[in-house]
C-alpha cells in the first residue's frame, strides 16, 4: 500500500460565484492559493503578489465610500428583451442566470454617497454580471448618475469594467455610448469633475465612451484596457502584439491615462484629486 495517495476530492463544477466562504482561490498572478476570506479582507488583492482580483460592485462601494453613506438610486431598473433575441441562448435566459448568480438586476450599482467627506455621484460596474456589458439599464443608470451629479453639483465617479456594448440589445446598446457621453458633455460644461476609474478588464464600447472621458483617468494595476480584443487584433493584423499590450502599464507609458493606483490607495487618491476640483467640500 502506498504511503501517499492522490486525494479523490474533485473540484465541484458549477458557477464560480457560488463558492462558499472559507474556500480558496488560485491567484492568476502568482498561482498561489489564497483563502477567500483573506482575499475579501484584503479588498480582493492578492496578499502575495498584489494581483487585483475582480471585485463585486458592493464590496468596492464599501471600500471607497464612508461607512453607511451610500444611497442607491434606480435600483429597480430592469433590462427588457426588446429584440426578442434568438440565438444559441436567449437573452431572457442569460439575464435570469446572472440575476441568480450575482443577486444583481444588472451590471451596475449606482447612487450617491460620501467619499472622505466629499459628496459624490457614483456608479460601479460589476464584471460578474454578463461581463458587465452595457445595455439599456447600464447606460440609463450611468446617465442618471451623471445627471444627478450635475444637478447636485457634485463630482461623478464611475468605476468601469466591461466587455463592451451588450449585443443582446442590439443598436440600443450602442446608443448608450452616445447617451452617456452626452450627459458627460453637460457635466463638463457645468465645470464639475468626473473621475474615471478603469479596472480589469475595460474594453470596447465602454472605453470608447465614458471610460475615456474622465477629467482624470485612473487605472488599477495590470488591468486589461483597450478598444478591440487582442485576439481580433492578432487575426486582423497578423502581427505579434507588443509586450504588456493593452495593460494599464502600457496605456500609462503611451500617455493615455493619468495614473495607475493600487486598489487600497484608490479612496485616498480620489479624495486628493477631489480636494483640487471641489472648491467647498
Amino acid at each position, binding site marked *: 500500500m502506498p504511503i501517499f495517495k492522490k486525494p479523490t476530492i474533485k473540484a465541484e463544477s458549477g458557477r464560480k460565484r457560488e463558492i462558499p466562504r472559507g474556500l480558496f482561490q488560485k491567484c492568476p498572478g502568482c498561482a498561489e492559493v489564497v483563502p477567500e476570506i483573506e482575499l475579501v479582507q484584503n479588498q480582493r488583492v492578492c496578499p502575495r503578489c498584489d494581483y487585483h482580483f475582480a471585485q463585486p460592485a458592493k464590496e468596492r462601494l464599501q471600500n471607497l465610500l464612508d461607512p453607511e453613506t451610500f444611497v442607491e438610486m434606480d435600483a429597480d431598473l430592469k433590462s427588457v428583451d426588446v429584440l426578442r433575441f434568438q440565438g444559441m441562448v436567449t437573452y431572457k435566459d442569460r439575464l435570469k442566470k446572472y440575476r441568480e448568480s450575482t443577486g444583481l438586476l444588472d451590471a451596475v450599482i449606482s447612487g450617491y454617497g460620501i467619499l472622505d467627506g466629499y459628496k459624490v455621484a457614483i456608479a460601479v460596474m460589476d464584471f460578474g454580471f454578463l461581463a458587465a456589458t452595457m445595455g439599456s*439599464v447600464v447606460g440609463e443608470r450611468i446617465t442618471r448618475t451623471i445627471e444627478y451629479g450635475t444637478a447636485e453639483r457634485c463630482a461623478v465617479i464611475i468605476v468601469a469594467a466591461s466587455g463592451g456594448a451588450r449585443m443582446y440589445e442590439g443598436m440600443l446598446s450602442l*446608443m448608450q455610448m*452616445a447617451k452617456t457621453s452626452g450627459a458627460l458633455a453637460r457635466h463638463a460644461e457645468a465645470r464639475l469633475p468626473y473621475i474615471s476609474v478603469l479596472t480589469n478588464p475595460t474594453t470596447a464600447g465602454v472605453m470608447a465612451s465614458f471610460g475615456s472621458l474622465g477629467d482624470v483617468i485612473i487605472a488599477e494595476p495590470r488591468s486589461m484596457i483597450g478598444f478591440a480584443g487582442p485576439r481580433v487584433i492578432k487575426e486582423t493584423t497578423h502581427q505579434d502584439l507588443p509586450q504588456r499590450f493593452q495593460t494599464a502599464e502600457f496605456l500609462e507609458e503611451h500617455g493615455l491615462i493619468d495614473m495607475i493606483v493600487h486598489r487600497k490607495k484608490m479612496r485616498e487618491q480620489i479624495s486628493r484629486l477631489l480636494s483640487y476640483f471641489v472648491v467647498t467640500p
Partner: protein
Amino acid sequence: MDIQPLDFEKPIFDLERRLQDLKTHSDKHDVDLDSAVAAIEAKLRDTRRQVYGNLTAWQRVQIARHTQRPFALDYIERCFTDWSELHGDRRFADDRAMPCGLAMFDGQRCVVITHQKGRNTKENVMRNFGCAHPEGYRKALRVMWLGEKFRMPIISLIDTPGAYPGIGSEERHISEAIAVNLREMIRLRAPIIAAVIGEGGSGGALGIGVADRVLILENAYYSVISPEACSAILWRDRRHAAEAAEALKLTAQDLLKLEVVDEIVPEPEGGAHRDYDTATKNLGSALRRNLAQISKIPIDELLKQRYEKFRRFGSFTGDKAATASARS
C-alpha cells in the same frame, strides 16, 4: 460595368442570361421567339419581386457590402459640387479611410465627413477597407469644428465595417478618439445629418453618427457588432452569421421601428449598385429635405432636441417617473 451577382441573386442572373441568349439567337437566326422572350421576361419580373421583396437581414448585409455599391466619394461626386478635401488630423497622419472636406450642396456650403472603402486591392490598401484609425476621427472632429466656426451644416456619410483593430490604433487611443467625438457632436453648434450609406459598423460608425437626423439607405445596415463576430461569440462559430444578422435587428426596417434611425432612403431594385443615378437622386432629396427642416430650428433648440434624441434611447422597466424628473 458588369454587376457581380450575389449568391441569392443566382436565379435572377440565370434568367437574365437565358433571356440574353434567346434575344441573341432570335436576332442572329431571324427566328421569332417573342412569346418565349415574353414568358421569360414575365418570370424574371416575378423572380425579381420574389427575391428583392423578401430580402433577409443577411442578404441585405451582403448588398451593403457589395464592392460595386456607390461609396461616399461617388455620392460626393454626384450630389455635391466644388469638393475640397481637407487632409490630416494635424497630429499624426491623414487617414485615407475617412475623407473629410468642404463641398457645396444645392448652393449651400457644407462640411462633409465620410468613410470610404476601396473597390480593389490597391484602393483597399489606401483606404484600409474603410476601417479608420484614431486620426480619421480626429480629422473629422477638426473639420466639423470648421462647420461650427463658419456656420455650415455637417453631413456625415457612414460606411465602415468598424474602427480598425490594430496596434497603432490602440497605441494612439482609438477609444478616446471615438469617445471625444460622441461628446463633442452632442454639443456641436451646427446642424448635423448622418446617413448610413453601406455598413454601419458599431463604434466606428457611431463615431461620426451623432446627429440631428439619422438616415439609412434601404439595404444598409447598422449594428452593435458584425454578424460574423456575433456568431463567433454566441455560436462559437462564424458560420451562423445569417442567424446572427437576423437576431441583431440591424436592417434599416428594424432600426426605424426601434427609432434608431429617422428615415429610410429608398434604393433602386436590387440595391444602390444597380443604378447610381437613382441612388444618388434619392439620397440627395432626403438630405435636402432634412437639411431644410433642421436648418430652420434655432441652434439652442436644435441642441436640446439632439440631446433628447440620444437621451431617450433604451428599453427597460422600472421607475419611469424618476427619468422624467432627471431629464428636466
